[in-house]
């Protein structure tokens, strides 16, 4: 799965140079050069990680924290890295500290030195960010698509079995009726033969109705599986509201363990 990065820097030359470095490393990079485009892209839902210049309006303005302000406006689900050529204590507090407004913190704060060490630090930070949320969503989407497909297959099987069972039941009733009629008309051998075929058809009807019943149970099972995987996804999404990334990871692990244990217990009950 390709990771999509948003790179926001008002200095085009610098932005393009970083962007080209990251593209070489295999990332998909969206580059923006101003506040408005950056906000649009962050809203778009396509971005996995955002790398934002602290002074996104004016490099000369020491009070320009626009990059940090934008970063903190958006949900914690998108990890944000702040980069700047002008690092100071206050800027770090603004980016990484917990604030009264409880807006999500950025995940890192990097000094944009002119040498290659910045690029290496940036790469190390990007690689250290867990993207489990996104990959889980994509895995879960694959699972639910498969469950949907299985559900459709089983439903068509169930429908075929039902039609066949219905046909056989009508045939068997008609044959038994004709057989009884033949016996009453003193065509005993023919009547017995027709009746026997009718009874045999009834057995086929029973077997086909059994298959229909099994298919219905499988449909119920797929339905429950789909609901369970959606519930797990919702629980994991809810855990992203926790501000602290480490604690978030612990909560996610706990959720997965509890849900897995529950699923296994259901399987055992079925057995």
């Amino acid at each position: 799965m390709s990771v999509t990065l948003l790179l926001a820097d008002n200095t085009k030359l610098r932005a393009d140079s970083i962007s080209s470095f990251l593209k070489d490393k295999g990332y998909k990079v969206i580059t923006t050069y101003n506040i408005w485009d950056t906000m649009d892209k962050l809203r778009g839902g396509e971005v996995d990680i955002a790398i934002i210049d602290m002074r996104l309006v004016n490099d000369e303005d020491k009070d320009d924290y626009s990059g940090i302000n934008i970063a903190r406006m958006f949900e914690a689900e998108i990890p944000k890295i702040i980069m700047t050529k002008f690092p100071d204590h206050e800027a770090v507090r603004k980016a990484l500290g917990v604030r009264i407004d409880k807006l999500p913190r950025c995940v890192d704060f990097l000094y944009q030195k002119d040498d290659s060490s910045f690029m290496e630090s940036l790469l190390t930070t990007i690689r250290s960010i867990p993207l489990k949320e996104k990959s889980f969503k994509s895995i879960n989407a694959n699972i639910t698509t498969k469950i949907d497909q299985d559900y459709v297959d089983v439903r068509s099987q169930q429908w075929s079995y039902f039609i066949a069972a219905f046909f056989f039941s009508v045939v068997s009733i008609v044959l038994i009726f004709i057989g009884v009629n033949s016996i009453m008309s003193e065509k005993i051998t023919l009547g017995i033969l027709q009746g026997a075929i009718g009874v045999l058809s009834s057995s086929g009807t029973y077997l086909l109705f059994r298959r229909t019943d099994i298919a219905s149970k499988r449909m119920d099972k797929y339905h429950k599986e789909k609901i369970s995987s959606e519930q797990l996804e919702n629980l994991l999404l809810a855990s992203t509201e926790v501000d602290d990334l480490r604690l978030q990871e612990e909560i996610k692990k706990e959720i997965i363990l509890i849900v897995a244990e529950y699923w296994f217990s259901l399987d055992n009950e079925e057995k």
Partner: protein
Amino acid sequence: MSKKVILLVTEDILSEWVNILSASVEEEYIVKTCVPQEINNYRDPILILVDLASIEDSVRFIKDLHSTAPSIPIVAVTSFPDWREARDVLKAGAIDCLIQVYDVKQVKENIQEQLMKLPLNIY
């Protein structure tokens, strides 16, 4: 009703800043001080302040403290602001990194601001 405890982790328990801190919050809270090795003797403070000058590996200390008691907010305090150190302690789990000022009113405002962040999102 007993006052809630603000715990200051510092080697320098006789420093002027300890008195200023105590004076700034004395109406509502009690400030207790402890050296880093004794941190486990104090249960459930409402806030832990960590004096960065007192601890050799402040990042490790805060990381361990945060993982032991994630619900207790940790605020780093320093007389010598350094953005790299601030970044590292904030990433380790501190909710803020304050510069030690020697003005009771200012300290009171700073501590009140930290307490207004409670409860943390983890609740």
